[in-house]
C-alpha cells in the first residue's frame, strides 16, 4: 500500500500513520514550533517530501497549523564574480600605474579591460568619484581623485558584499545594506534577488492532546518475510494493520459433486438403519426389469418410447429355474390365487436387454438371492427412461430404493418406515396417498412438506404375491423408492433437473455444503 493509500484508509479509521506520528513527536521535541527542515532533522524521518506530506495530512486533521512567511535573499549570478575585480577597480589600478593620469585612449589600448568594460568602468569611476575626466588639446584624460587614492587602500562596500556573497552564497534581505544592494542590483549580471517561503509548523491544541494520549512510534512492516522473522527485525517494528474490510476474491477448494454428496447422505441414513447396499448392472434382461416385477409384456412402459433397449447386447441369458414360474404368474397367476394377466407370455421378449428403468430390479434380484428374512437392503444408482431431457425429466437419473422383508412386514410398517426414513432425510412432515405400481399392492405415494407445500416425493408399496411367489418368498416385503435429483434440487434451490449434471465448474466450486 502506498502512503497515500494508507492515508486514505486512515481517514476512515482515524488512525495516524507512521509519518504523522513521527512528525508530531519531532514537533513536540522542538517545543511545538519548527520549520519542516528542523522537523526533518529532529524526527525519525528520512525525506523532506515525507515530512511535507505528513504536515499536510496533520493540517487537514487540525493537529498542526502552518504559518507561511515570504523572505527575500540575494546571491551572485556568477560565483566567479567574487574572485574578479569590478571594471572600475581594474581601471583605478591601471590609472595608479600611469601615475594617476592617462588618456582614455591609452586606457582602451593598454589596459586589460575589454571595450565593454571600459564603458562600465568610466561610468562607475565617475559615479564613485574615483577619477575625473579632463580635456587637454582635444583629448580626454582620466585623472585620479582623492577618493580614488583612498579607494586604492580600501575596497568599497559593494565589493565587500560581493566577496561575502562569494563565501556565504546567499544573504537575507535583513543582512545587507539596502543602498549597496540597490546599487549592485542596478548593474547587470552580478546579483539576483530571490524569494523563499518559509513555513513554521505549530502544534495545535488538538495536536497537543494527541501527543498527551501518547504516541508509540515503531517502524512499520507491510509484508512479513523470512528475513524479518529470522533477524528478529519484527521485534522493533510494527506489522501494519490492514483494512480487514477491503475486498479479497473468494477461494474454493476441491468438493464432492452435489449429487454424490446426496448419495453419501442416503447411504449413511440406510446404514444407520441397518440396511445393506445392493449393486447390480445397469444392463438387465427385460425379465428382471419387467417380467419379474409383474409388468405384463404389453405394458406401455415396455414400449420403445419409454424404455431403452440394447442393440448390443441384444439378448441376455435368463435364470432358467425362474422362467417357468414367472411365465405361469403372468399367464394365469400360477399358485398365487391371482388371475394373472391372461396372455401368452413370451420368453424371447423377456430375454431382451434393456437399460434398467428402475432400481427395483436390484431389489427383486437381491430378494431372489436372499429369500429368507430378515432382509433390509437399499441401492442408490443410475436408471434410464427413453425421454428427451427437459427441466423435469432426464433420460438417466439416480433412484433411491429400499426394501424390508420380515415376518411381520405390513402396510402399517411401510408407513412407519416412511416416516422414519423421510425424517432422517430431513422431512419432518409426510403424508401418504394411494398410488399404483404393477409390482406393489397396496401402493402409496409419499408427499413431504417442504416450506409450505406437500411435494410428491416418491412411491412405496407392499410387493405383490405375483412378484414374490416365483422366488419362493413367503414373507411380506415392503419397498419404496424416490428420485435423488429432486432432493439435490430442493436443497440447492434448483428448478431445472439438468443442472444436477451440467458439471459447471463455478457451481461445483461454490455450491454450499
Amino acid at each position, binding site marked *: 500500500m502506498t502512503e497515500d493509500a494508507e492515508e486514505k484508509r486512515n481517514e476512515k479509521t482515524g488512525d495516524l500513520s507512521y509519518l504523522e506520528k513521527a512528525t508530531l513527536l519531532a514537533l513536540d521535541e522542538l517545543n511545538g514550533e519548527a520549520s519542516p527542515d528542523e522537523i526533518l532533522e529532529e524526527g525519525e524521518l528520512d525525506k523532506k517530501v515525507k515530512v511535507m506530506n505528513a504536515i499536510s495530512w496533520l493540517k487537514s486533521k487540525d493537529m498542526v497549523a502552518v504559518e507561511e512567511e515570504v523572505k527575500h535573499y540575494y546571491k551572485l549570478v556568477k560565483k566567479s564574480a567574487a574572485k574578479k575585480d569590478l571594471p572600475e577597480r581594474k581601471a583605478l589600478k591601471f590609472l595608479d600605474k600611469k601615475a594617476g593620469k592617462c588618456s582614455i585612449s591609452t586606457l582602451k589600448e593598454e589596459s586589460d579591460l575589454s571595450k565593454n568594460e571600459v564603458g562600465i568602468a568610466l561610468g562607475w569611476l565617475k559615479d564613485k568619484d574615483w577619477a575625473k575626466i579632463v580635456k587637454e588639446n582635444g583629448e580626454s584624460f582620466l585623472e585620479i581623485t582623492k577618493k580614488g587614492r583612498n579607494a586604492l587602500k580600501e575596497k568599497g562596500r559593494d565589493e565587500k558584499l560581493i566577496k561575502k556573497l562569494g563565501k556565504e552564497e546567499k544573504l537575507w534581505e535583513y543582512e545587507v545594506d539596502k543602498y549597496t544592494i540597490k546599487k549592485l542590483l542596478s548593474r547587470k549580471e552580478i546579483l539576483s534577488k530571490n524569494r523563499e517561503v518559509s513555513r513554521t509548523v505549530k502544534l495545535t491544541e488538538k495536536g497537543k492532546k494527541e501527543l498527551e494520549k501518547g504516541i508509540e512510534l515503531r517502524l512499520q512492516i507491510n509484508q512479513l518475510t523470512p528475513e524479518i522473522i529470522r533477524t528478529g527485525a519484527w521485534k522493533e517494528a510494527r506489522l501494519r494493520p490492514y483494512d480487514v474490510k477491503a475486498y479479497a476474491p473468494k477461494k474454493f*477448494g*476441491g468438493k*464432492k*459433486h452435489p449429487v454424490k454428496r446426496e448419495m453419501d447422505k442416503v*447411504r449413511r441414513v*440406510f446404514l444407520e*438403519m*441397518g*440396511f*445393506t*447396499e445392493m449393486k447390480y*448392472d*445397469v*444392463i438387465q434382461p427385460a425379465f428382471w426389469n419387467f417380467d419379474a416385477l409383474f409388468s405384463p409384456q404389453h405394458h406401455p412402459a415396455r414400449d*420403445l418410447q419409454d424404455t*431403452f*433397449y*440394447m*442393440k*448390443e447386447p*441384444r439378448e441376455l441369458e435368463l435364470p432358467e429355474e425362474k422362467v417357468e414360474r414367472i411365465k405361469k404368474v403372468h399367464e394365469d*397367476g400360477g399358485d398365487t*390365487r*391371482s*388371475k394373472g394377466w391372461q*396372455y401368452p407370455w413370451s420368453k424371447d421378449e423377456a430375454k431382451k436387454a434393456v*437399460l434398467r428403468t428402475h432400481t427395483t430390479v436390484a431389489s427383486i434380484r437381491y430378494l431372489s438371492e436372499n429369500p429368507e428374512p430378515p432382509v*433390509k437392503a437399499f441401492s442408490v444408482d*443410475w436408471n434410464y427412461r*427413453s425421454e428427451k431431457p427437459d427441466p423435469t425429466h432426464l*433420460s*438417466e437419473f439416480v433412484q433411491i430404493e429400499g426394501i*424390508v422383508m*420380515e415376518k411381520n412386514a*405390513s402396510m*402399517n*410398517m411401510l*408407513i*412407519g*418406515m*416412511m*416416516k422414519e426414513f423421510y425424517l432422517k432425510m430431513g422431512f419432518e412432515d409426510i*403424508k*401418504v*396417498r*394411494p*398410488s*399404483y405400481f404393477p409390482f406393489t*399392492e*397396496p401402493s402409496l405415494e409419499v408427499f413431504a412438506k417442504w416450506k409450505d407445500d406437500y411435494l410428491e416425493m416418491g412411491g412405496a408399496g407392499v410387493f*405383490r404375491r*405375483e412378484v414374490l411367489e416365483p422366488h419362493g418368498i413367503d414373507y411380506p416385503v415392503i419397498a419404496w423408492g424416490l428420485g435423488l435429483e429432486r432432493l439435490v434440487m430442493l436443497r440447492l434451490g434448483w428448478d431445472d433437473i439438468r443442472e444436477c*449434471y*451440467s*458439471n*459447471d*465448474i*463455478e457451481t*461445483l*466450486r461454490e455450491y454450499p455444503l
Partner: protein
Amino acid sequence: MPVISVNSDELLELTKADQVTLLEVLPKIGVEIEEIKGDAWELEVFPDRCDMLSVEGIARSVRGFLNKETGLPEYETFESDITTDVDLSVQEVRPYIVTALIKNVDLSSKGLKSLMDLQEKLHITLGRNRSKVAIGVHDFSSIEPPIEYKAVKPDDMSFVPLEKSVEMNLDEILEKHDKGKKYAHLLEEMQRYPLLVDSKDNVLSFPPIINGKLTEVTPETDTFFIDMTGTDMRVLEQTLNIMCTALAERNAEIHTTEVKYGSRGIIYPDLAEEDMEIDVEECEKVLGIELSSEDIKNLLEKMRFSVEQREDKFEVTIPPYRHDILHPRDIIEDIAIGYDYDNFEGVLPHEVTIGRSLPDKEFREAVKESLLGYEFNEVMNYILSCEKIEYHDMEVKDMDQENIALVQNPVSENSDSLRTWLLPGLLCNLMENKTESLPQRLFEMGDVVLKKEQKTKVAGVIKNSKIGFTDIKSLMDGFLTNLNIDMYVEPKKHDSFTEGRCAKIIVDEIELGYFGEISPKVLENFELEHPVVAFELDLESLYENRR
C-alpha cells in the same frame, strides 16, 4: 398417467358433496388434483382405475367413500334383438368385436362431452391408442340391423366418413383424412381392412380409424349403438363394461346385443359380477392393523363391493367395471383406501439387522479423499455416451468394437452407446467450462459399461496454463502412495496422449491405468487452448492390488 378434465359443478352434483370435502377426498381415493382452472378440474387417475376416467365413474367412487351410496352398484339390463355377425375375414386383421345398445341417453351438452372424453381416454389407456380397442358410438336410428363385421379390400367400399361430406374409399381415408393419417399405421401391410356395415351395406365404422357420417351422434340422439373392435377380447369386454356403466350412471338403459362368431353367439355387455374370497387374517397381516369383520364389511361396501361373510372369510363381489382386481390383495388395498391412509399410525421393523456397505466402499472414500486433497472437484457424467466422443474425438484408432454396448433406440445421437472410459466425459467438462478460471482440476469416479461387464473407474484431468508430464507423475506417485500402492511405470502408447508422454502403472504385471499429457490434436478436438494432463485408473484393480 391419464388426466381427465371434469366440470366441478357436475362433479359436485353427481357426488352430492361440497367442494371442501371433495378436494380432501379425491386424493384419498387415488385421484390427484393436477390443476384447478375455475370450474374445470384437471384430475389424474392411476392407470389401473380406468373406471374412474369419467366424471360419472369418479362420482360413483366418491359417493361410496362418503358413505352416501355403498355396496355394489346395480345396473339393470334389457334384452334387444340386435345382432352383429362376425365374418371370418376379420381374423387376420382385427378379430374381435363387442357391442351394446344404450337407450334414454341424456345428451345434455355436459353428458355428451363427458362421453366423448371417456371414449378418448379409453382409446389411449386400455385401448393402447386404438390398437387394442377402438370404440365407435353411433346414433342407432340410422342403422338397419343386423350388422356385419367383416374385412374388405381397400377399394371395395366407399362411404362418407365423419368430418367429410364426400364419399371416400378406404385407402383415400388413410391417405387424406386426419384420423386416417394418424392411425394408418395400425393397418399397415394388411390386405383387407375391417369394416362395420348394416343390412343395407351402409358403413357404420371403419375401425380403428373413423365412423361413417351416417350414424353421427347429434344432440337429438336418444339411442346409441356402441361397437368396440380389437385384438384382446378380455380388454374389449372390460372397456365396454366401463363405458356402459358410466352411461348408466346418467340413467341410461343398457340393452344387451349379440355378437355371432358363426353359430356361436355371445351376449354383450356381460355385467355379471365376479366373486373373490379374502380372509380376515390375511387382510390384517398385509395391512398390519386390527380390523373386525364388521369393519372389513363396512370398508368394502364403502368401496362399492358387496360382501358376504363365511366364518373368517369373505366372499367379495366385484363390480363389473373393476378391471384391475386380479388378486385378493387388490381388494385388500381397497380396504386400506377405505380405512383411509391417514389413519395408519405406522410401526417400525421389529427384527434386528446389521447394515453393510459394499465391500470396497471405504477404499472408494480414500480415493476420493485423496483427490479432494489435491483440490480436484468431483464431476458426475452420464453413462450414456456416444462413439463420436468416446473414440473419434479422443483420436482412438483401435476401438474395441467387440465390447461396446450400443443402445437400439437412443433419444439423441449423443447417447447411442455406453461409456467405456471416463476421460472423454472429463474433456467434455473442460470444453464446457473453457472460460472458468485456471487451474481446473476435475475427477470422476464412476461406472463404465461394456457389453459383458460393468466396472468402476477413476479418472482426472488438470488444465492449467503450464502443466506437464512431471506434474501428473508426481501427483500419481503421491496419490498411489496414499492408497498404499507402489508406483512402477512403463512407457505407454495411447492415441489420446502425446507420444512419449504417457505412462502405464503396473503392479504385479497388471496394468492399473495410465497417465500423461493429452495430445494437442485431442485438445483441438475439444476446443481447449491450454495443456491438459490426465489419468484414468481401474478402481477394482487398485482395490485388489493395494498392499
